[in-house]
């Protein structure tokens, strides 16, 4: 089990978080069909580091980007996204 450094609440247990999808699979609203298809239905799925969107569902309920190694579970970064990140 991981301890995730939430940018708003500090380090918290993984059981408070829910994984959403990888950062590069968010489909922009104006994406052409091919790009939307590719983002919706394919993944890099690296046996290494990837950027993932997680949500602190049982905490501050904010979305965040977690940079994590998928074999060692080492977390090299966690940053806020959404309106909070802009302010």
């Amino acid at each position, binding site marked *: *089990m991981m301890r995730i450094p939430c940018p708003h609440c500090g380090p918290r247990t993984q059981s408070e978080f829910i994984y*959403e999808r990888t950062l590069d699979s968010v489909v922009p609203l104006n994406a052409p069909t091919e790009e939307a298809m590719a983002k919706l239905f394919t993944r890099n*799925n*690296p*046996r290494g580091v*990837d950027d993932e969107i997680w949500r602190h569902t049982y905490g501050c309920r904010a979305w965040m980007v977690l940079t994590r190694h998928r074999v060692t*579970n080492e977390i090299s970064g966690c940053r806020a996204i959404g309106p909070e990140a802009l302010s």
Partner: protein
Amino acid sequence: MSRYSAFSLLRGALNGQKHWQPAWRDPEPKSHYDILIIGGGGHGLATAYYLAKVHGLKNIAVLEKGWIGGGNTGRNTTIVRSNYRLEPLHNLFEFGLKLWHGLSDELNYNVMFSPRGAMFLGHSDADMVKLAERGDAMRCDGIDADLLTRDQVAKLEPLLDMSRDARFPIQGGLIQRRGGTARHDAVAWGYARGADSLSVDIIQKCEVTGYVRDGDAVVGVETTRGRIGAGRVGICVAGNSGHVAGLAGLKLPIESQTLQAMVTEGVKPMINSVIMSQSLHCYISQSDKGGVVFGGDPDNWPSYAQRGNPMVMEGAVAQGLALVPALSRLRMVRTWSGVTDMSFDGAPIIGETPVRNLFLNGGWCYGGFKATPASGYTYAHTLATGKPHALNAPFSLDRFERGATIDETGSGPMPNSR
């Protein structure tokens, strides 16, 4: 290769059992094979076996990065069944189930297939409607399915909590009596021995690190044991499909996730069938050694680590205890986890890729073990002829862009919402 039999065992007893030989050779890789299979799990070995047996091909090799039976073949809950609602799924798995029923004879290796019945529990009116619908769909294609009343379920599994105020009240079930369990390692070993005796080279500790390209075609692979040329290359590494296909520049509709299982200490027979609840995601069966085997949900986040999250384990056990309270007295002795290919519609992928001469078998989600014979048979057909078998034609890689997904759970393109 000498055949195993009661007679050879008896003869061995008279001369100190000195007649045993390794079940397969340990050859050096040749410089070129007609067909190269990446991945020496059950599926890869079955593919090699049927390529040699059914299609008469001789120059075949299976490359395994670790050792035979060390991956997902040895990390599942050993359940065998074909009770799916959608036609392409139940046809493929039923073809496999028929092969399971003769597999020990076919391979001259006891895979300990035990058709003790695979039962889904229904916990509500809605569950029972869904189970009846699924059973009807199966029976339309000649697959056995019996809807059970509450009393029939109680009679089959007396230790289930059938009380009206149970945490998960049981209203009935759907049983496939020809389903059951098998010895998972034996399946890999049996296919390995069978393929080897048909002159397939099984090369262990040989990891593929890249592909040799000639224009748009793959003509071989780079491995930790050197370059090996190939007419056709078949990826068969479910769990690591994303990585191995990625070496060829492909992005797949797959996310790798951890799936866990666990087993208790051995006890006398207490679970007669395979008890499953798809409303809960809990799978309970008893191994021939007596241990009660539990399986649950995937961990629902991407991971290549072959270790799971205790939270998910706790969930599976809590459900199991609510269904069979007597299990609370048992000690859990082992847990394990495998890396599974979660495809985006929950169905496998068997077929060609956009790269010429490169084929893919993967995306088995949590249902790969039961498909081992069917997967090997249809993939062998695809690799030998370059065209899909009728049974795996619906499972092509391009079905996602064509909108022809096989979405049994109706969960769309998010494996973690399944």
